[in-house]
């Protein structure tokens, strides 16, 4: 009886939480998609807002972090860009597109910050 109750509870929990997670993911994807659309029209601030929302909704969304890295780079905010790219890579270390973006970013970042102190 107890086992049956536990099983029922587990099934109930799963049935309640899974759609919620799926909804979150869908909402986050929607934000990312819209961000890409507006970025394509040069509206980078709006894109940043959308992608920040996306990672708020789903903090494991590597693609959204990657896009934020690109957008912060476009805005000249190199520290934030580095943070976003690193987060994306931490979430998906084998994502070749993220890695290429990050390498291109690093090249510029190193070139512009390298200087003598003497």
């Amino acid at each position: 009886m107890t086992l049956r109750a536990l099983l029922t509870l587990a099934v109930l929990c799963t049935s309640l939480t899974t759609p919620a997670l799926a909804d979150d993911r869908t909402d986050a994807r929607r934000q990312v998609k819209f961000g890409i659309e507006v970025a394509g029209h040069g509206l980078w601030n709006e894109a940043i807002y959308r992608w920040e929302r996306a990672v708020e909704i789903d903090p494991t969304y590597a693609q959204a972090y990657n896009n934020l890295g690109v957008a912060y780079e476009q805005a000249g905010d190199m520290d934030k860009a580095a943070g976003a790219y690193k987060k994306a890579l931490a979430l998906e270390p084998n994502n070749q597109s993220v890695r290429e973006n990050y390498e291109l970013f690093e090249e510029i970042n190193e070139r512009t910050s390298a200087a003598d102190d003497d």
Partner: protein
Amino acid sequence: MNARVLLTTTSAIIALTFAACGGGGIYELPIETPIRPKLDVSAFQRVFVAGFLSGGSDEVDGNVETVRLLRSQLRGKSQLRVIDADALPLLQLAATPGASVGSAGGSVDPDPAEFEDAVINDDEDLEAHAHIFSDVAYWKRIGEEYQNPLIVTGSVMFTPHQRQGFVQREEEVYDTFGRRNVVPIRTFQERKGFILKPKFIFIDGRTGTTLYSESFREEVLYQANQVTPALSSYFELMERLIPSFLGALSSQSIRGTRVLLN
């Protein structure tokens, strides 16, 4: 019936796998990364590209050419007014005995003819003359003469260079069936070219003190049988550095492309 169920299930699994792998969305977009200037030049209205300690090659006058190039770049891409004046003969000035010109009260304009033998062949020679950059009194005097501009000076080493070794290149080959293949071929080559090592020093003309400095190194190599004038190589190498030089004084942007993901 069973086959139908199996087909439907397989299709669903394939569709889910595709979605999970992010089957869509790679979008390549052009971006422009704005680079903030490394130096706050808001206190200056003018810039004086004063001159450079130069050496390494007899074929290019690194002082005159660098002064001319940087002034023309600054004219087009900086808000500062560029002062036109003869390039200072820094090498002769630095070689003048006891001519820590400002502080010692010596002559600011020693007779260049007297020190025209001074040459810089290598980094050691350059080091021996580099004391001029820390002569605060001298640069302050120069600053006063030109109404307190931002002063740009430094050194330019432009040296011939050659290298031997194996170089890998790709070659097209066709097999017996006429199929094209690209294979890497390693060949021993002798190549020659130049190394450019400039150091840009930015000095506050009001105080004579160094605000900022930055060093670079670029090299170019050509096939040994290729004839490239030294001056062309000099400009080819300088062109690579100009954005970084300008980036010290004014906002620049670097164009590129990045990939957005869905």
